[in-house]
């Protein structure tokens, strides 16, 4: 039941404050391993807040917890997550001769996780 969506990486206030405490800390890893998703998309995929979801691109995949956002804030088909080690798993190295890899508007395959796979932010992955 995988669907293609568009992932935007970015900064958030909590990401900024938690990285001051340390990027290896539990709070930062939890924030960096959360993906925001449109609530209608979540309902269609059978997801609720804190459900695990796998994001996959041609270069890699990561398992994240999802958090619902209203349609007026985050349109259907769009995902947002804070930059961090888990968004890196999805980024391709090609920069089209600019030096800049694409980290916004990535095409990602989104799939609910039903096999109990550990999410990427859990300590043994950290």
């Amino acid at each position, binding site marked *: 039941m995988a669907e293609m969506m*568009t992932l*935007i*990486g*970015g*900064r*958030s*206030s909590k990401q*900024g*404050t*938690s990285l*001051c*405490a*340390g*990027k*290896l800390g539990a709070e930062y890893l939890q924030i960096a391993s959360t993906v925001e998703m449109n609530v209608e998309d979540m309902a269609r995929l059978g997801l609720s807040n804190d459900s695990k979801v796998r994001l996959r691109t041609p*270069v*890699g995949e990561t398992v994240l917890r999802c958090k619902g956002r209203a349609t*007026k*804030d*985050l*349109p259907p088909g*769009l995902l*947002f997550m804070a*930059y*961090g*080690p888990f*968004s*890196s*798993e*999805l*980024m*391709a*190295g*090609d*920069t*089209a*001769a*600019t*030096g*800049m*890899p*694409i*980290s*916004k*508007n990535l095409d990602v395959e989104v799939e609910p996780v039903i096999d109990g796979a550990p999410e990427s932010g859990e300590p043994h992955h950290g």
Partner: protein
Amino acid sequence: MGDNIRVVADATCTFCGCVCDDMVLTVDLDQKRITKSENACVLGKAWFKEHAIEERPFALVDGREATTAEGVEAAAQILANARFPVVYGLSDTTCEAQRVAVAIADMVGGCLDTTTSVCHGPTGIAFQAGGESTASLGEIKNRADLVVFWGGNPAEAHPRLFTRYAVTAKGMYTPNGRKDRTIVLVDVRRTPSTPVADIFLQVKPRTDFEVLWALRALVKGRKIDPSIEQRTGISLAVLEDLVDRMKRCRYGALLFGMGLTMNRGRHFNAGAILALATDLNEFTHFVAKPVRGHGNVTGADNVVSWQTGFPFGVNFSRGYPRFNPGEFTTADLLSRGDVDAALIIASDPASNFPKAAIEHLKRIPVINLDPKLTHTGQLARVSFTTATYGINVPGTVYRMDDVPITLRPAFDSPYPSDEQVLSAIRDRVRELLGGNRVPAGDPLAGVAVS
């Protein structure tokens, strides 16, 4: 709190590119920590609170605790023996340290790159193509009556940009602050910045260039097909209204973020918004500025430009600097597996670079300087704990508008500064190599001149 308290007025926060220099810090000198940071935003408060002195080894070499001197020796050996190293990072350290890093890259004949390449590097490329209609933040505060934020979320990334300079701040010709300004926000999603705006344009993903080019056409009086709305999500009427406001304003400012540069189109997007500002100067005064992330990423651009002539993505293999984004930029060098060693200062590519680049970092010897243990520090062969710039270390940083600001540190650190560690590495590499690996030569030697 102990009795040994010091208050540091006009201190500088180096968390983000706003580099706010009106901090009033209360410092517990016995505990070596900042207990209060007046005027700081939520990010600044966390920055000051969390940078107390931690009990960490001065250095780790192959995972074993070491002295700074032992770390310097190990680092110098790596750099002197590498055939194609890269020096990278530099956005969270002083200009004084950045200058030494440039010297090391020059000496070893390697590559020199900063976090600009994965931030506003495309904007730097666009500057070279089309120039920049620029201003200081003070000018924007005092004069701008129309401010357009494009592809950014300052409320979460640069909170005081709104209050100190561009939205609510009261200036010479904006005495009523917010009431004297029209605020426009352009983004693909609603963020905490959205409520600040009078006008919000929610563009469809990957259509910023089309919207900017349509605005340019309308500014020049060209016709745009109403189907622009299906393509971009923004109706022609909204675009026409915005163009009308931009032409009629007294002083306009376009402040743009990485929604343009990290997106498909990269330097074309940045070039389009810079060109829009240039176009609008036929009608009124308009400026365009990139909103910069790290505390001294702008300083890195300045220092690397002074020293090499180029802002980032520089190579010294021929004994003189060459600039080529895509070839000498770190994401490319690592993802392709080109470099055989990396000196990484005050940044954490292991937590934000592409997967292939991080995998290569795990294969090569990495030297890392950072006040905190990071993902990059974890994989480094040599890892130095350094003092925090602005809190423990004096020096110079550049605000996002290229204004240099002097740091007023709050308390001493037992750890050396980045500049001190880099200077020791530079001196030892010089001993090992006997000078520059590639002697400086005449760049035109051997080139036929007709």
